[in-house]
Each structure stands twice: as C-alpha cells, then as structure tokens.
C-alpha cells in the first residue's frame, strides 16, 4: 500500500472520514505520521475555538475585576481564582461528571407561551464539553493577564484622552483597549501556546473518544501501545506540536507588530521566544 493511499484512508480519520478500522499490525511510519497528523485537527479545533471565545470573555473578566463595583468585581475575582487555582485535569473530570448527571432527555424550560426542551446530551461529547472547559479555563488565565495589563496602562495616555474630550466607550475603544492588549500581548501569546498544549488532555480526562476519533495524543498513545515502541509516535507528535507552536508564535508576532506600530522601533517590545511562564 502506497503512502498516498494511507493518507487518503487515514488523513481525516479523526473526524470520521475514511477507513473505519485503525491499523493493528505491521504499522508503517507513514501510517503513524498520517494518523497523528489527522488527530491534530482536534487539537487545532479545541485550541482555536477556546481561544477565540476566551479572548472576548477574558477582556470582560479583566474589566470586571478592575471595576469598583463589588457586585461586578467579586464574581470575576472568584471566577479567576477558581479556574487558576485548580488543575485543568480536575476541571475536565468535574465538568464531565456534571454534564453526565444532567437529565438525559433534556431539561424542560417553561416559557410563558411555549414549552421548549433543552437537549443536554451533546454536552457530554468532547467537541462541546471539551471546548466549554477550555474556554472557561483560558478566559480565567487570560483575564488575569489582561487585568494586570489594564492596571499598567500609562496614566498619561488616559489623561491625553481626557484632554481630547473622549469619554466612555470611545475612550475605552481608542485608548484603553489598544494599550491593554499591547501590554498584555507577550503573556497572552504564552497563554495561547499553553492552551494548545492543554488540548491534549481532553481525551484523557473522562470525555470518551467516540468511534476512536481522538486527538493527536490519543492516536500517539494508541500507536505506542500497539507497537510497544514509544520512540516513534511520541517524537512525531512532539514534532507536530513544535511546528504548531512556531506557527502560533509567528501569528501572534504579526499581531504584536500591528499593536506596537505607533512606537519607535527602539521602544517596540519584541516578542521573544524566551517566554515567561504563566500557568
């Protein structure tokens, strides 16, 4: 069987397209590369969705935590504390068990005019449940990052905005938000990288891989167990993740450049490869 045939059979195996049966014996190098690569679709899916949704919530949480109104501030502080203080692994387990306990035939919501039934079965599936947990988790971490950035927005910038007569929304959108993003961006890049790494936990923490459609690490472990040789699948997945990380750094570097384009080249903060740890 040629390698191209393998790619056609297993290239989209992780989303259920192609051969049903996974390779069992005489596993070739090509099959390993293809299967693990196809699993990467899930990692990118989890990471991209959680990151996109989490970006919006994290800004809201950061603003809430910086608010002077305790009714807004306290829930945000608790949210951040809860998700940053506990292991993601436990959060996955907890969320899965909670979703399983929801009534199987849906929750009946009584609106005054009609009855609607909210389906809950989909929450126990990895595609939804995994994204929800990752989304809340990254919102908390990024919220803390942006809160720190918000607190270090230069006072002069805000005074200048006042002097121009800006208030409320326009001041926030034109002055506060860009400065906040600019200052928090290097840490946020780091958070995004670790978020993509964390996506490998989904299928190891309760959420079952339906019809053996799993992520890259799921297939890497499958292959390592089948061939009893860890020295091939794990380096392959490592290589894939290094590429993914470099891609992320490149993309976030482009955004970083745009956020800092008003500064003189010497004062522009460089997005260094040496990242500080946030998690």
């Amino acid at each position: 069987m040629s390698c191209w045939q393998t790619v056609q059979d297993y290239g989209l195996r992780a989303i259920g397209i192609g051969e049903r049966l996974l390779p069992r014996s005489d596993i070739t190098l090509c099959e390993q590369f293809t299967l693990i690569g196809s699993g990467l679709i899930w990692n990118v899916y989890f990471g991209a969705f959680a990151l996109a949704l989490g970006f919006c919530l994290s800004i809201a949480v950061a603003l809430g935590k910086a608010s002077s109104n305790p009714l807004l501030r306290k829930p945000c502080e608790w949210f951040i504390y809860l998700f940053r203080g506990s292991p993601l692994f436990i959060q996955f387990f907890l969320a899965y068990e909670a979703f399983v306990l929801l009534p199987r035939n849906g929750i009946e919501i009584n609106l005054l005019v009609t009855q609607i039934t909210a389906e809950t079965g989909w929450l126990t599936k990895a595609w939804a449940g995994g994204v929800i947990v990752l989304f809340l988790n990254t919102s908390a971490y990024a919220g803390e990052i942006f809160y720190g950035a918000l607190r270090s927005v230069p006072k002069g910038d805000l005074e200048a905005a006042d002097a121009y007569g800006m208030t409320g929304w326009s001041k926030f959108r034109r002055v506060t938000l860009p400065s906040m993003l600019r200052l928090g961006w290097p840490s946020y890049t780091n958070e995004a990288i670790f978020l993509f790494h964390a996506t490998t936990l989904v299928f190891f923490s309760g959420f079952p891989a339906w019809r053996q459609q799993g992520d890259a690490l799921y297939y890497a472990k499958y292959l390592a167990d089948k061939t009893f040789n860890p020295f091939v699948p794990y380096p392959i997945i490592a290589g894939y993740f290094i590429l993914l990380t470099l891609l992320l750094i490149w993309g976030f570097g482009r955004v970083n450049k745009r956020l800092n384009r008003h500064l003189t080249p010497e004062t522009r903060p460089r997005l260094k490869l040496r990242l500080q740890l946030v998690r």
Partner: protein
Amino acid sequence: MFEYCADPSLLSDARWMMCYLTSPKHIAFYYSFGTVLGLLAITAPCALLLGFGGAVAARSLFWPLRILGKAYTSMVRGIPDIVFFLFVPIALDQGLEWLRHHAKCSDWTEPVRQGNDFVVCPQAKLPLNSADAWVHDAYSVFLAVLAFSIVFGAFAANVLIGAMNAVPRTQIETAGAYGMTRRQSFWRILVPQMWVYALPGLSNLWQILIKATPLLFLLGIEDIVYWARELGGSKTRTFTYPHPDWRLYYFLVLLVFYLALTNLSERFFQRMMTRLSHGQATLGGEALRKAGKGGAAA
C-alpha cells in the same frame, strides 16, 4: 472501624455515612492524598537540581554541553508536558531493560524488537518477575517521579537562566576585577544573588507542579483521581455500601483540596518574597523601605 458497622444495611443515614467514610477503601483514599504530597516533596528538589544543572549547561562555554542545555530548556516550550509524562516512563523502562539485556545476556541471539514485541531475557526484566509486588509499585512511582522531575527541571532551568541573567552584570565584572575566576564569581556572586530574581518564577512553577499532580493517574499510580473515580462510581446492591454515581462529589472534594493547596502556597510565597526583598535593590525592596519596614528584621 466502628463495631456497629458490621451490617451497614441496617444503619441510619448518619451512622451509615460514618461507616462508609471509614471503610478500608476510603482509608486508602485518604492515604493517597499523602502520596500526592509526597510526590510533590520529592519532585520539587529533584526538579530544582535538574533545572540548576540545565541552566548551568545552557550557559557553559563548552559548546556541546551548551547545545544540550539549550535543547533541554527549550523542549518544554514547544511540546505538551503530558507527552513527556507518557513518553519518559516507558522509554526509560525500555532503555534500562535494553542496557541490562546487553550486559547480562550477551549470548542471546534474537533481536530485542520482534515485530510489535519488546523481548528481553528474563534476567534483564525490571523489576524481576520474581520480585515482590511492592517492588513493582515502587518502580512505577520512581519512573513517575523521574518523568515529573525531568519536565519540571526544564521549566526550572528556564526560570533560573532568567534569574542568572537578571543579576546585574557589573557585579560579575567587579568580581572579575578583584581577580576571582569564573567559577568563584559564579558560586560567590551569582548564585547567592539570583534567588530573589528566581523566586516569582519558582513560586509560579510550584503552582504548576501542584496542578500537574493529577496527571499521576495517567501513569497508573493509585492517586487521588484514581480513588475518586473508583469510589465515586455507582455501586450496586452486591456491594457493602450501595450508592448511585457520586463521582461529582468526589471530584468536588479534590477541587477544594487543590484550591486550598494553591492558596496556602501562594500565601507562603508572598511572605517569603517579603523576607527576601528586605534591603534588595529591587522595586519590592524599595517599596518595603518606603513603608518603613526596610531596616527592621522580619
């Protein structure tokens, strides 16, 4: 534990709960909290040592060592840590068995890898088939600790390199001007001063380490996650203590445990930072001086 626990089906709710929570399996569950804390206590110094070695290697003047150190420190940035947790134990196990195989059974002619099997002679097995059960357990814990130490050593190396670079360069140059060798200035000037710069990173790392301990479950250790799943799952009438699916409550207990642990360590590190910042030429030290606590001993 209590005498009246002999027949739980006759007990009232409160007593039933008492008996349930002190059953032998629950005692094992409580001990597993100790396993987690023990692992933390062993791993943290090992990782710090490995990290120190990695940081020194990455700054070495001898280029092969420098490349090795840099590869070690940067590997955790691109690769998810869980990949290492799955890879290191099995790779080490096979590596050690392979070495022992070549040392002890040199007359063995068959290849070690036969298709999908990894075959070594019986004398090379680690641990030996004849060994007690506790040796097998200890061996798997040892591999888990090693995997954790390697990964967190790489994280710690990152932190320590940053801290070493943060010590003002002029101090090293002054040491050189006084005639100290590279080794002397490293041990007498750099190492004593770097800790205050390293502490924020190391405290962060400690929090990450705490939050990584549930992954022990994936390495086949009977830790708190294992017991929470085991005990929480629904038990039918055939069990002594039948109950529905209680895993949610068990995991809530774990959540509270971890929240308390991270909260306690955060407070501890805050106090330590205050102590270390006394009299230091850093922002923190300056703030302490202004607050009027600068000169007084803590």
